[in-house]
């Protein structure tokens, strides 16, 4: 009789162990969810970017055009007014934006977001060292952002390509790129020149980014890159001084410093 009891318990335990459905622990979870989507806009001087058009003047007085801008944002964090933070799960860790691919302007996040009021949105511009691993993107378009292993590997956080009228009145090209920086032993670039690497990703907290998530509704937040801000300050950027950044850590450091004011929130609806 007693042994039967034990056998019963063992069978019950085995059944529970091997059964398909795991019992979720009972926790205090909110029952109401909504959704969030992001629209990425690229502006210059408050207007939508006009690519391939030599109509802009930066803070240094350079007459310039933008041909394309491509970048990663990752690890978005939403701060709830109750003090908690919401981050996104697998598959929604990052987003790639490409001015040549209009479909990348919209990002409907798959994660359900608890309803409520949120006070701010922050994200990583670029990819942190955990995400920025060579060959994690095997397919284009993201794979075309690759950053050579020799220069630290991973991916360009951003490619901003364009042209400006240089001091000799020629139309010259700039490659305003950001990714992992390097420290060099000497000026000649050979296999053993590099002595160390510098992570250049940075956190952006969008000003005035309060929003509300309503049950079963999607809140759309427009994230605006104000391109002129990359060149405005605190470091006034003169393309005649630096037009290619990839192997110039002091230049990339200035890009990072200028990046703090580049993003803003447009419409929220």
């Amino acid at each position: 009789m007693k042994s039967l009891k034990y056998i019963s318990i063992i069978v019950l335990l085995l059944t529970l162990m091997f059964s398909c459905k795991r019992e979720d622990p009972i926790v205090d979870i909110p029952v109401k969810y909504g959704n969030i989507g992001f629209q990425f806009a690229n502006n210059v001087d408050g207007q939508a970017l006009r690519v391939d058009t030599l109509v802009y003047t930066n803070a240094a007085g350079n007459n310039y055009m933008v041909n394309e801008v491509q970048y990663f944002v990752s690890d978005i964090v939403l701060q709830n007014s109750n003090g908690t933070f919401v981050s996104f799960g697998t598959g929604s860790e990052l987003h790639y934006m490409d001015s040549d691919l209009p479909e990348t302007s919209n990002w409907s996040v798959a994660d359900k977001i608890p309803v409520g009021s949120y006070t701010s949105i922050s994200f990583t511009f670029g990819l942190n060292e955990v995400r920025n691993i060579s060959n994690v993107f095997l397919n284009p378009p993201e794979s075309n952002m690759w950053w050579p292993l020799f220069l630290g590997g991973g991916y360009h956080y951003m490619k901003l390509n364009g042209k400006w009228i240089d001091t000799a009145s020629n139309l010259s090209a700039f490659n305003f790129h950001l990714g992992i920086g390097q420290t060099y032993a000497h000026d000649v670039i050979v296999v053993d020149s590099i002595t160390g690497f510098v992570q250049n990703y940075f956190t952006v907290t969008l000003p005035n980014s309060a929003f509300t998530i309503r049950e079963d509704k999607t809140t759309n937040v427009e994230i605006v890159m104000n391109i002129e801000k990359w060149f405005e300050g605190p470091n006034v950027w003169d393309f005649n001084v630096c037009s290619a950044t990839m192997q110039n850590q002091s230049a990339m450091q200035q890009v990072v410093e200028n990046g703090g004011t580049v993003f803003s929130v447009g419409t929220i609806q």
Partner: protein
Amino acid sequence: MKYLQKKLFLMLMVGIFMLTSCTKEIPITEVYIGDSTKYDPKPYVFNTPWFFPTEMNIPADNPLTVDGVFLGRTLFYDMRFSGYQSADSQMCCATCHLQENAFECGMNGPFPNGHPVGITGIATPHVMLPVVNLVWQNNGYLWNGLIHPDNPQVSKRTIEDVVCMAVYAPHEMLSDTNKARNAIAAIPGYKPLFKKAFNTETITFKLMAKAVAQFIRSIVSVNSKFDQYLLHQTAFTPSEANGFVLFVTEQGADCFHCHGGDGNPLLTTYQFYNNAKDTIFTDPNDRYGVTGDPMDHGAYLAPSLRNCELTPPYMHDGRYNTLDEVINFYSEGLKPSPYASPLMHKLAIGGAHLTPQQKADLKAFLLTLTDHDLTSNPAYGPPPNFP
């Protein structure tokens, strides 16, 4: 006691049910043995290193099968494909696409200057592009990307369409699809091959093109010294290593933004760039001819640099016969124009200004991109016999 036994039995049954309910049903597949003409579409399996793209450009209506690829390979090499009877008029894909030259004609092939002409002597608008790794080319085929799924002309969207175009083109086979189809359909030995590939003995040109396209998509170059280096199976010589550094550095030769490297083993983005080799653009078949975007004047596909040792002449018009000439161009020969890609950021100073040693190193690296597996693999060569 009886109650407990019943209860125990019930619990056991429930437990067994729950345990077994987890396992997935394994479908029983029918196995065909011994009938060599039966339609048994085995998927064609690619064997590529892990760092190659996982997304392949294969139309849903023409998946690769072992038998489809074999039929396509046979047709690719069959001189009767063009539909002509007399030997001096017969052509096939392999007339110009030579395996030993990475499926281009090269400078040592049938055309001494490396610029193909059709059966009546008319030259092709541009020199050849390699028929290699097209299964990963996702941005349009040909130098200007004309062949693209979004092309409003439905007959100019896929590799299958290119096969058809090659049959008609006056600068290629100057034939027609009926002629080509009739020539192949008249050969009894092809019927079982079509049966195995497409489950029909009714030969149409559409199926011929599908088969050739399957074979073309199967041709991949994934085992150069560069690939072996990425797999840590071999080391570069000091010169090759220095050349690789020049290839992937912006302050070096800055090849990688358009031509890939360790993060993009295709050795191209398959995008279109004006690489600053001209100042006046009059070619109606440039990228502008496809898009109408003024920024695309003089822009062409960045070809893969895989096997570039074997694929002279270089550039869309074959203006350079050697890799040295190409390296010299990127080092000192850039010509300014408003249409030059912004990635040609050394345009203002004419190029990368490499030293003779750097040029030699860069070339040494480029030679590591030659894939002898591609050029010698019997699976890409002529079939053992023709029907």
